[in-house]
């Protein structure tokens, strides 16, 4: 492993999306999360949403290539997220991450995704250690 990161270090942020109906359908097919809320604009409107919400797992999973691009010499041993404000189709989502602390050989990252309006779409945590590969 190259030099360990320092607490407070920020990872280069990423913008993902906007995702259209076809992208949400494609994620529903690969994940099996075919909840009609994500796929049917009329049903999303019935619960007060202005569009189909992006699957929370699609957002959480998008942190992995961002983390890998930052430190390909590290491997994820934990990844978690809470899905908060729905991020809607046709809006961008900003991903950011920073090193929260070093816990022995484990590096703890805080993950945040924000909707285009700045609302928290996801808060999460990743734990990494040196890759065995």
């Amino acid at each position: 492993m190259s030099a360990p990161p320092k607490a407070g270090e920020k990872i280069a942020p990423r913008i993902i999306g906007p995702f259209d109906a076809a992208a949400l359908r494609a994620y529903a097919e690969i994940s099996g999360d075919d909840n009609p809320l994500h796929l049917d604009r009329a049903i999303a409107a019935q619960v007060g949403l202005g569009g189909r919400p992006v699957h929370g797992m699609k957002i959480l999973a998008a942190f992995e290539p961002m983390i890998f691009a930052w430190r390909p010499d590290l491997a994820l041993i934990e990844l978690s997220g809470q899905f908060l404000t729905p991020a809607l189709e046709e809006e961008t989502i900003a991903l950011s991450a920073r090193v929260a602390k070093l816990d022995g050989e484990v590096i703890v990252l805080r993950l945040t995704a924000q909707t285009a309006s700045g609302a928290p779409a996801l808060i999460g945590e990743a734990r990494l250690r040196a890759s065995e590969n």
Partner: protein
Amino acid sequence: MATRLRVRVEAETVADFCAETGWEAAPASPPAAFPAVWLREPALKQIFREATPPGLVPVHEAQKFFYARPLEIGADYDLTVELARENMPERLIATARIFAKDGAAVGEMIVTLRLFATPEGAR
């Protein structure tokens, strides 16, 4: 009671999952979030369906993955899935433990689903 099933990490499915989650190219090992695709297994969809009371719909609220060792492409794994129910607010929490074929613990996935009243059009 736990539900048990065998799953496989297919290279094609890893590539498809990576394409949908922002990877420019699939990494050498499956992403940590890859087990999310196992939720499309009919046996798992059935236990969620049976555990969801009429008039409620599950919405993904939180997700966790833990690993003792990385997943491997082409490998088979045994999943043991236990479902718990919470009230106020209503939730289903599925804990899927991942084992290698030799019985070694590989990791764990915890899926938290919040149960909401079903929108009219989805009934």
